[in-house]
């Protein structure tokens, strides 16, 4: 069908809204609450357009395009209305631009600028509410909230975590948890998707930049850093590099310039995780243990299952996440190898994730005798530090990680994308069970952005004529995870192994990734990780020489007593109202 926008005839598909048609054809309609990943709510009203013959103005985000429609998206009248509306929105917003995390990225700020809104003549009218900073992961500042509804949609409809909701009505309404409890005392799983979608910085991570800086300046401390696989996939976007390429070498270089003493890589620990988790899978299959085995890398997912599906806790792998395995090894294995007193080590991680902050603070994460991970920085905090030090990231040389816990395989890299843990596990489990390497290491069915993915793999067991058929599934986004678990619980589906990542797209779509990214960004980041995997000389975890070394010199073998002491953990049911354990 055909519609006319600003006098220009444009082809539109049935079911498209006006704003979708406009954006597809390069026509900008100012909008604030609209986000293309989410079902539009029509809350803000900034995107109103004039449609001939339709009387009052219509919201472009919720009005379906109809054949023959003639639409005006910009005019003196529309500009006046949008300016007046934005002025109103600004009056109810706590304008704190210089100290705001979203400064320069804020969608409201951009619009206010674009629309040339003057300094308000009236006093702001928002009702001052205390900032919630009790959660180890997320800070909520309701004073900045513009009621776009995105966080509500993400938390309830996509993630089905049901932490955030709208309380009350009208001007007094606010985005909050039930009874206005702190996020720390709610079912919030700290996934941080709300922070990624918030247009104005009302939701952000709890910063630990200050703590990390203090450690870096402390000469008595050895500051060791690890970076998750998905970090390198998002940094390029921020510094004008090709977003299709990972920035591993520059990332190491930047960390070195920031003053970290040892630059390792979480990818190493990802390989370690595969050794443990792959072995756990084989053990459970062989010994008739609880199946399906479900991954435990994603701390948002772990809190989710503890809260909403405690009946599945025996299914969750006892393996700690790569971050925590790494943390435990830094203060034991690394300390021993380098003969450093672990009390002098500050263990920092750079993560695409806000839930990792929560995970690092879980009381049981101290198997080294110390906090296994001291501080967690999100990608956004890391970027802030790079920019704060005026490091010319784009022109940094490609550097290497430090030895011992810096080397990794392609299997470790793809942990950052949905399906990656599954693919890495399949590669190693196949080798361990059959005694042969998988002919084609690319396990395509578990890749990509569809919400729930399934695959089936025949593994010929070594020294036997038996062929084992392994059924696996992958879910990303907790809403999808919920659906999958319900199917398993109701006996509709049966698997050996399930990978679950809390965030849509996996860690490349984590809650600590740059503001304003959408599902397309996530997909592209995932592809860049698969590209790096393809370019790796070693692509299976069990072939990582440094992994062989750590088992030879410290851990013994997978699932050994030492492994269990440092690399495994257990889980406990949580109260659905408070998210607390007994």
């Amino acid at each position, binding site marked *: 069908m055909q519609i006319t926008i600003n006098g220009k005839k444009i082809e539109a598909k049935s079911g498209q809204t006006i704003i979708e048609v406009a954006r597809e054809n390069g026509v900008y309609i100012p909008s604030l609450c609209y986000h293309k990943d989410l079902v539009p709510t029509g809350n803000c009203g900034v995107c109103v357009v004039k449609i001939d013959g339709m009387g009052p103005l219509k919201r472009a985000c919720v009005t379906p395009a109809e054949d023959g429609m003639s639409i005006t998206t910009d005019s003196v009248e529309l500009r006046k209305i949008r300016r007046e509306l934005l002025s109103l929105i600004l009056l109810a917003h706590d304008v704190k631009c210089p100290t705001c995390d979203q400064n320069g990225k804020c969608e409201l700020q951009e619009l206010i600028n674009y629309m040339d809104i003057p300094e308000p003549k009236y006093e702001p009218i928002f009702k001052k509410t205390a900032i919630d900073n009790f959660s180890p992961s997320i800070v909520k500042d309701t004073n900045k909230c513009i009621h776009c509804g995105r966080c509500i949609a993400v938390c*309830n409809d996509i993630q089905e975590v*049901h*932490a955030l*909701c709208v309380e009350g*009505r009208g001007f007094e309404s606010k985005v909050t948890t039930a*009874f206005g409890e702190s996020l720390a005392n709610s079912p919030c799983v700290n996934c941080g998707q709300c922070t990624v979608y918030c247009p104005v910085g009302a939701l952000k991570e709890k910063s630990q930049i200050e703590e990390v800086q203090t450690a870096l300046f402390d000469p008595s401390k050895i500051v060791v850093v690890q970076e998750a696989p998905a970090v390198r996939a998002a940094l390029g976007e921020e510094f004008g590099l090709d977003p299709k390429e990972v920035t591993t070498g520059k990332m190491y270089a930047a960390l070195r310039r920031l003053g970290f003493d040892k630059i390792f890589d979480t990818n190493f620990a990802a390989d370690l995780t595969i050794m443990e988790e792959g072995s756990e899978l084989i053990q459970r299959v062989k010994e008739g243990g609880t199946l399906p085995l479900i991954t435990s890398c994603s701390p948002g997912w772990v809190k989710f299952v503890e809260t909403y599906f405690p009946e599945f806790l025996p299914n969750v792998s006892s393996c700690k996440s790569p971050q925590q395995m790494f943390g435990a090894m830094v203060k034991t294995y690394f300390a021993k190898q380098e003969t450093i007193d672990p009390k002098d080590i500050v263990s920092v991680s750079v993560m695409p994730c806000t839930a990792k902050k929560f995970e690092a603070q879980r009381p049981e994460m101290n198997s080294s005798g110390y906090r296994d991970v001291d501080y967690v920085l999100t990608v956004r905090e890391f970027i802030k530090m790079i920019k704060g030090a005026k490091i010319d990231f784009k022109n940094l040389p490609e550097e290497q990680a430090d030895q011992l816990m810096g080397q990794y395989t392609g299997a470790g890299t793809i942990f950052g994308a949905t399906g990656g843990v599954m693919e890495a596990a399949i590669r190693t489990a196949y080798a361990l069970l059959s005694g042969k390497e998988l002919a084609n290491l690319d396990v395509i069915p578990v890749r990509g952005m569809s919400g729930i993915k399934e695959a089936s793999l025949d593994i010929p067991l070594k020294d036997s004529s038996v062929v084992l058929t392994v059924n696996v599934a992958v879910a990303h986004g907790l809403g999808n995870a919920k659906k999958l678990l319900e199917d398993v619980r109701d006996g509709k589906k049966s698997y050996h192994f399930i990978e679950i990542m809390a965030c849509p797209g996996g860690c490349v779509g984590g809650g600590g990734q740059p503001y304003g990214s959408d599902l397309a960004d996530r997909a592209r980041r995932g592809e860049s990780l698969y590209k790096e995997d393809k370019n790796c000389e070693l692509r299976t975890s069990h072939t990582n020489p440094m992994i062989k070394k750590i088992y030879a010199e410290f851990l013994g073998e997978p699932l050994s007593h030492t492994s269990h002491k440092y690399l495994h953990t257990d889980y406990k049911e949580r109260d659905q109202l408070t998210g607390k354990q007994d």
Partner: protein
Amino acid sequence: MNKYLPEKENILEILHLVQNANPKNFLSKEDLAEVANYLHLPYNQVYSVASFYSMFSLKPRGKFVIKVCQSPHCVVNGSDNLLDFLKKRVKKNPEISLEECQCLGVCGNSPVVLVNDKIYGDMDKEKLEKLLKNLEGGKNVL
């Protein structure tokens, strides 16, 4: 609660029922958790719905809830002044809660005050004072 099927559409009826059964005349955390459980709805959703409607209170209330109509017709007849008077007058008594409300449709007897389910029309300060004395004595009569 069993009076109603555990379906989302019955949530307002169930909340009314639960609130009426609460001795403090409000919906507590436990109440909402129970309703959420019964209806198989997320707790925060039940909270969000309950907080939307002005007949539900999420804070404990006194034995008597005085509602003063603040609709234009009653305001014309001085109900805004009555509200100010009451605000000062009932502050200290935990057994008496004060709320504003909108038109109760008893405009013929405006200004109107509602105490729990009982309507009092043609109110003035003297009558209110008398009513308050009775309420303080535990009786909802004028």
